[in-house]
């Protein structure tokens, strides 16, 4: 096996992962998934993951904890900053430094852009970005691509449609950057006020072929993957603006019927009303499987970061 380039390394941005790096994680995730539970529990036995969540989370934090437990390690951290010294005004830097004393690797979610890169500079242990502001959510992107690869058998050649909140959705920016490593076509659709930020896709445009419009309707039949995102109320500076655009997109059975055979629907979750629950049992709906893969992908990343020999 080739040298493990992830050992001891931070995972801050999808920009830090080229195609080979992504494929290394996918390969590790496949191996972790295929391992008998007893063998898997030896991978990070005695190691500790520290988590620091300044924003709410269900899947990211729980999947990291579940991943660490599945590798035989343990987790400790702060999921409610109101209960920590951050509520007394302690800086992020000092909180990160402290947690890095007690843990072998850290995962951070924080409302400010660039927070993870800063944390990595002050931490004595590797830092994984678990979502930074509206900027990045790199492990979600790795999970999204892994899901496409598993469920569609490939990433190259796919046509991917992304709808919803493209302006504030950090998963979208990470996903676009990750897709830029592959030969894919991307169609983006959002209300005008929620278009992707041009200053955040400056480097993506050079590597990725994508179109932008307000509707996906005329493209639905071309898509291999429909990626739906939530309109994120908490990111809107103005509630009136949120009320104007909420419910702009609802994927229901009518959309499903127009999708081509074998097409799949993904969503980073949580969802509100943008995907009708009546779709959940259909063969196109793969978002809960996507959440399951998230746990394995994070286990793979942790194994690569914590063990020089990889997995």
């Amino acid at each position, binding site marked *: 096996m080739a040298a493990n380039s992830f050992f001891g390394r931070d995972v801050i941005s999808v920009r830090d992962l080229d195609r080979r790096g992504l494929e290394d994680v996918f390969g590790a995730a496949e191996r972790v998934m295929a391992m008998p539970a007893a063998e898997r529990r030896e991978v990070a036995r005695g190691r500790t993951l520290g988590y620091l969540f300044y924003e709410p989370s269900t899947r990211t934090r729980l999947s990291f904890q579940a991943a660490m437990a599945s590798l035989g390690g343990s987790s400790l951290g702060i999921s409610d900053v109101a209960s920590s010294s951050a509520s007394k005004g302690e800086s992020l830097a000092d909180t990160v430094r402290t947690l890095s004393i007690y843990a072998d690797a850290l995962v951070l979610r924080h409302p400010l852009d*660039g927070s993870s890169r800063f944390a990595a500079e002050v931490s004595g242990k590797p830092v994984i970005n678990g979502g930074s502001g509206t900027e990045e959510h790199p492990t979600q992107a790795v999970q999204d691509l892994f899901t496409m690869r598993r469920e569609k058998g490939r990433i190259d050649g796919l046509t991917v449609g992304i709808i919803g909140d493209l302006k504030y959705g950090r998963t979208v920016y990470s996903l676009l950057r990750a897709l830029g490593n592959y030969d894919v076509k991307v169609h983006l659709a959002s209300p005008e006020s929620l278009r992707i930020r041009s200053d955040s896709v400056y480097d993506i445009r050079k590597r990725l072929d994508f179109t932008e419009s307000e509707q996906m309707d005329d493209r639905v039949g071309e898509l291999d993957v429909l990626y739906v995102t939530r309109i994120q109320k908490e990111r809107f500076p103005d509630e009136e603006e949120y009320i104007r655009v909420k419910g702009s997109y609802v994927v229901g059975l009518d959309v499903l019927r127009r999708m081509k055979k074998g097409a799949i629907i993904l969503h980073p979750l949580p969802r509100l009303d943008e995907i009708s629950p009546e779709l959940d049992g259909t063969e196109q709906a793969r978002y809960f499987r996507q959440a399951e893969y998230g746990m394995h992908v994070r286990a793979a990343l942790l194994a690569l970061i914590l063990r020089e020999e990889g997995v």
Partner: protein
Amino acid sequence: MRESELIVRRISEGTVIDHIDEGMGLRVLGALGIDGGDGGLTTVALNVPSGKFKKKDIIKIEDRFLADDDTNKLAVIAPRATVNIIRNYKLAEKRRVSLPNEIERIFRCSNPDCITNSGREHIESVMDVIDREVLALKCRYCGRILDVSGIGRAPAAAG
């Protein structure tokens, strides 16, 4: 001797930054971290006549010899500046500023939600120069591209 050279006195040892774009002299001082706090003599001349219709700013810093790393920071705010190192009243070295790969501290990230603007952390902004042709700068922390149109006149300087 030209009029512009007579406006401020000659220095025996130190650095003269000449041909700074009109009105940018104070930003150059800020970028270099020169605030007079070290007790050294620094002379600033703003709006000095230069050529028939133009004006420029000049800064003379006595007993301090600025290195390339310092003066290259000026490439974005004063791209036409020349740096003259003076020893014993004579010009010992003359150089133009050239764009470095990264620029620390001078520009505040334009993204209000960037960690560098949090005000709570001990952190300086760092901009990576990602495109020399169109002068595109990217915040090393949040990755946002700094709007470079009219950057030289932007009032927001960090530090």
